[in-house]
């Protein structure tokens, strides 16, 4: 009888780490400016080893200041959104939940749009800080509304989040309707999710949120399994359910807030990666969380690489790609799983 072991989690993580490295290398090699693939890799590897050497100044800037940080950011955001999707589905016990379901996205959008309209987007951290602030306010507000008698009720939290989200959407609509043409273009790209907003230096700011958030959630991963059968069920198995709910809500929300503040609202990743990974590896969060993080990271780096190269020199918002590829692939997985089941 096979059961999940630490060894299996480590093996799967290691196996999923290779494609991630490959995707990063691939994304460093391609782009609108042509740098010979072998040259790109050697520039990257030498710089990682602390050497300078090959390549022209421009090639080095393209690889080391643009493509590589962007791939890392896309990976972080992909991992963050996927993990946060897993958690919201468990916390709300709703398979339709995604990182944006409780309004964090709308809050950060309001923050970002205000920053764009005020011209703060030109400042190096203006946009991410404003959108992060908007997200934080929403997280606090929804948490406050979603609590009743000191407890979180998933359905009340869900309602509070959805309603706060729609209220914020009204504000977004209002801002859209009064924006000028150029601002409008920026806003729409932000709403669709686009890594051209990403400031490479924001890695250092986002990384702690996503890494620490992930570690805390992983610490709770076995308890998350138990809550899938209901709160009373988890409670009678000795889980501190109220603490679990608060910790997962806060961690998943902060991860989402940090992710969207970099690149806007990339849709679909947080919904389809968790489900796809569950179909492949099963619902145990001890494996699901790291596998989702790694697959989500690879998926978003690949999508972003595609988005910036397919119509080069024009860059598409990466959200277009994630939705266009993610949707059909997910349907395929669902159908396939059904076929297997009826056999």
């Amino acid at each position, binding site marked *: *009888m096979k*059961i*999940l*072991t*630490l060894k299996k989690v480590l093996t799967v993580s290691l196996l999923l780490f290779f494609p991630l490295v490959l995707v990063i290398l691939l994304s460093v090699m391609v782009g609108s400016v042509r740098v010979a693939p072998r040259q790109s890799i050697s520039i990257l590897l030498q710089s990682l080893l602390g050497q300078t050497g090959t390549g022209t100044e421009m090639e080095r800037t393209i690889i080391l200041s643009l493509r590589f940080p962007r791939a890392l950011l896309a990976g972080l955001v992909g991992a963050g959104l996927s993990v946060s999707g897993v958690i919201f*589905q*468990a916390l709300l*016990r709703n*398979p339709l939940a995604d990182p944006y379901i409780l309004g964090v996205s709308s809050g950060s959008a309001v923050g970002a749009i205000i920053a764009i309209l005020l011209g703060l987007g030109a400042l190096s951290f203006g946009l991410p800080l404003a959108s992060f602030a908007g997200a934080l306010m929403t997280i606090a507000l929804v948490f406050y509304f979603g609590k009743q008698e000191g407890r979180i009720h998933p359905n009340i939290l869900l309602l509070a989040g959805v309603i706060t989200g729609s209220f914020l959407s009204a504000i977004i609509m209002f801002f859209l309707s009064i924006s000028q043409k150029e601002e409008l273009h920026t806003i729409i790209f932000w709403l669709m999710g686009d890594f051209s907003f990403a400031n490479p230096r924001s890695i250092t700011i986002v990384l702690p949120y996503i890494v620490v958030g992930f570690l805390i959630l*992983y*610490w*709770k991963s*076995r*308890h998350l*399994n*138990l809550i*899938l*059968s*209901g709160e*009373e*069920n988890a*409670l*009678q*198995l*000795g*889980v*501190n359910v109220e603490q679990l709910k608060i910790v997962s809500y806060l961690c998943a929300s902060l991860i989402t807030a940090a992710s969207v503040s970099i690149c806007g609202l990339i849709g679909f990743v947080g919904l389809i990666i968790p489900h796809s990974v*569950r179909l492949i590896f*099963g*619902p*145990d969060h*001890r494996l699901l969380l790291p596998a989702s993080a790694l697959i989500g990271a690879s998926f978003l780096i690949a999508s972003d690489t595609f988005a910036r190269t397919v119509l080069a020199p024009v860059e598409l918002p990466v959200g277009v790609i994630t939705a266009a590829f993610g949707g059909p692939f997910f349907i395929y997985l669902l159908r396939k799983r059904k076929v297997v*089941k009826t056999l």
Partner: protein
Amino acid sequence: MIDLRSISFRYRQDWVFQDISLGIERGEFIGVIGPNGSGKSTLLKTLCRLLSPQKGEVLLNSTPLKDMKQGEIARKIAVVPQEAYSLFPFRVVEMVLMGRSPYLGHLMFEGSKDLEIAKKAMDWTEILPISERAIDELSGGERKRVFIARALAQEPEVILLDEPTANLDIHHQVDFLDLILSLNREKGLTIIMASHDLNIASEYCDRLILLQGGRIFKIGSPREVITRENIEEVYGCEVWVDENPISKMPRINLLKKGKHTIETLEKD
């Protein structure tokens, strides 16, 4: 083993039950019966601290439940829920292993000892052959057994069952209760079961607690509790109580409206 000392509980305003005192001995098979809203489920939930009474206290082996950690309680008392589901389908063996949770730390994986215990539990409940199946592929009866096996994997002293036979056909009802009875008789587990099925309660339980409006109306052996007077008083409907010809335990017969039926029976 479990002592209720004049406990009262309410959700918001009205007391669900008031001033209930009760002692449950180790190894008893107890049935909690009573009409809808009489407080059966709520009483069961206070026994494992899913709910805490506002007044009075529950003692488990003379320790107040409120002073125990949730994990400590889970090592002594297991609950078989009324609805057995999981949002995303685990395999049967994974589900049963969850019963080991109270013994594991945060970042721990179940080891070979846990697997042995889970296997024994699955063997006892006869679900070893389906241990690799996903629980959403199982029938209602099989799923009930999975949750019994999970409760056994907790290695508890007490098992609480809330309406365990709801949604089961008579064959599965009897199978299921025979299994519970064997846990009680052979493993010495204390069983506390809330049920709407008075005949099942009468047949299987050593002692019955009949609740009415949040108070204990009658407590005693099935013969003492399941009488026509008690049942008519508490449930407010006419019944005829005779005796199961095989087991000689009291048996409830439902009657359609109309007095003449009872009078005819009384003449006999």
